[in-house]
């Protein structure tokens, strides 16, 4: 059973977004991590990169397949999580915590899915 924490925002690309002021913390959902299998490689953008909403900004690769990370907001990368680059399996073991991917400063946010809508999307 995939956890879908109530307090987060979601995208149809199976990413989660936590909003704190004008900073978005971004990761992939447990559903996405489970579907990928063991994550063995994570590629993230550089600090300072300007992201266009919806553009491919990184990759999460498992033994089995590759998942692309789409920027869920437009903005500037403030931080990329070096912890998941060093230990990619953190994305599987703690997708909503230590497995976060990046923090982005944004000027506006698109419409996100709430937890209920995301649960409906993945059928749980």
């Amino acid at each position, binding site marked *: 059973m995939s956890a879908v924490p109530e307090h987060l925002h979601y995208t149809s690309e199976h990413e989660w977004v936590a909003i704190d002021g004008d900073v978005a913390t971004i990761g992939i959902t447990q559903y996405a991590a489970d579907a990928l*299998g063991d994550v063995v490689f994570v590629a993230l953008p550089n600090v300072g990169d300007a992201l266009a909403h919806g553009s491919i900004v990184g990759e999460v*690769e498992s033994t089995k397949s590759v998942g692309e990370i789409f920027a869920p907001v437009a903005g500037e990368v403030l931080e990329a999580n070096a912890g998941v680059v060093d230990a990619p399996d953190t994305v599987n073991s703690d997708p909503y915590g230590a497995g976060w991917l990046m923090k982005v400063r944004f000027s506006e946010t698109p419409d996100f899915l709430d937890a209920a809508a995301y649960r409906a999307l993945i059928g749980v």
Partner: protein
Amino acid sequence: MNTQTPLYAVHERAGASFTDFAGYDMPLRYSSDLAEHHAVRERAGMFDLSHMAEIAITGPEAAAFLDFALSNRLSALSVGQAKYSLLLSDQGGVLDDLIVYRLEDSDFLVVANAANRHVAFEALVKRSAGFAVEVADTSDEWALIAVQGPKARAIVDASGTLCESPLDELGYYRIAVGTFHSETLYIARTGYTGEDGYELFVPQALAPALWDDLEAAGAEHGMVLCGLACRDTLRLEAGMPLYGHELDRDHTPAQAGLGRVVDSSKEDFVGKDAGAHPEEGVPVLVGLQAEGKRAPRAGYAVVTPEGEHIGTVTSGALSPTLGYPIAMAYVDPAHAAPGTEIAVDVRGSLLRVTVSALPFYSRKKVTP
């Protein structure tokens, strides 16, 4: 609606994630692909392979028929012996790759890929014209359970199966008759993981009981349940081709490095015209290895360091055992020598790769 194997409910209870494979709902993984992969290399893993197709060939001319219908000389098998074989098209392309077991003088079991069940069966029936043989698709009678890994023998030995001969006398690529719950089963020392291990053909109704029995016997040896995800990385490390990736109708055995599986000294067989050596200039299958963690994947372009297109990746993954990316690919023979430095276009960036001999991984010793 997909087909379910007789073990579907058992897998569901064990918490498997399922995937569609050749129209079957098959376990993709139970826990972690990597944990399952390592368990097979270090201890043991158990797989449900009941989607595989079984075709029974019986009759006085069974051996002669198989010599004509398949690529190598199956009449040379002694009773109880197994051989890897190919079903070729008239043009010499590969319709399926198979394991053939000789159960009796005039009784063979052919195991085909699930996706090719009907292609293989129909081709064999067609080719049987004029031979005193019966070709029967017995896939719906058998379940197939594989126990693979260095602890496999101890586990099968401790299960409730009884083999006609002591298991430690069953050589590699041999099959023996056994019994389980008073019914006949076959125990074969074959597999698709690069490890020692066994494949057990059991009547479908007894499959859940055998699975439970083996699982109990495997507990003290650290055996884990394994899905198709790790089966794929295991066979890739072992350099074994997967039909639909390394093998298809458009490539000859010689291109796939399987010339040894074609016995051109046979007088007549389907696909003989293809020959044992690749034609001049056609792509050949090679191994590739790289540094880092990014893996070439099936379908990615193989290029020269200057970016000239020279081939296509057929399978690839970050090798769980070796820790670096490995792949197989069809490439221009001018770039196929081991040690050649080429590259793969990994989603827009060039990954430097080195042509490498297959297999990538060999177990340390084959116990007799």
